[in-house]
């Protein structure tokens, strides 16, 4: 387990990148981007984890209990918001591409553009 979470993060990053580059649909591509971003959640939380420590909520904890890192959790929350926001924006562009050009395929859209 020493490196395992980091390996998972790296795999997610590369898998998302692969999916985004080879995607044939902007809808699929947008989801691949969220997979890519999920790698940063895993990495951040893995960095902030301490074995045997409690969640960073002091309610009901004895004073002096070891807690995990609350900072990375706050960063991850911000990260999740960014992820949803980017998804929504790319999808709304994809909807328009479908309406205006009749396709959500990146290659076809490029050809239509000329």
């Amino acid at each position, binding site marked *: 387990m020493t490196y395992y979470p980091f390996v998972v993060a790296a795999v997610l990053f590369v898998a998302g990148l692969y999916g985004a580059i080879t995607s044939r649909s902007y809808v699929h591509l947008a989801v691949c981007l969220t997979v890519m971003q999920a790698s940063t*959640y895993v990495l951040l939380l893995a960095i902030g984890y301490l074995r045997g420590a409690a969640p960073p909520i002091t309610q009901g904890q004895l004073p002096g209990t070891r807690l995990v890192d609350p900072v990375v959790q706050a960063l991850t929350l911000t990260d999740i918001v960014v992820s949803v926001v980017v998804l929504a924006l790319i*999808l709304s562009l994809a909807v328009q591409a479908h309406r205006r050009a009749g396709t959500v395929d990146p290659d076809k859209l490029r050809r239509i553009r000329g």
Partner: protein
Amino acid sequence: MTSGLTAVLQAVALTLVGVLGVGTVLVRDPLRQVVVNGMLGLSLVVAFAVLQAPDVAIAEVVVSAIAVPMVLLPVIYKTHGGGKG
């Protein structure tokens, strides 16, 4: 919870995250992708919970159960499932 059990749970949850993440990318049909992506979201929730991050786990629950389907499904319906060409 013993630390050994925690480690096992973490390993299982992270493996699920990895497998489902790769799966989400490889599934090309958007509607099926939504399902796999939802499972990825669920596995992330479990992973966050066993990494002692309940705040993030709740955020991931609401995002992957509500926000993402709410924007994805209408778009998929429009662009891939019927509607005007």
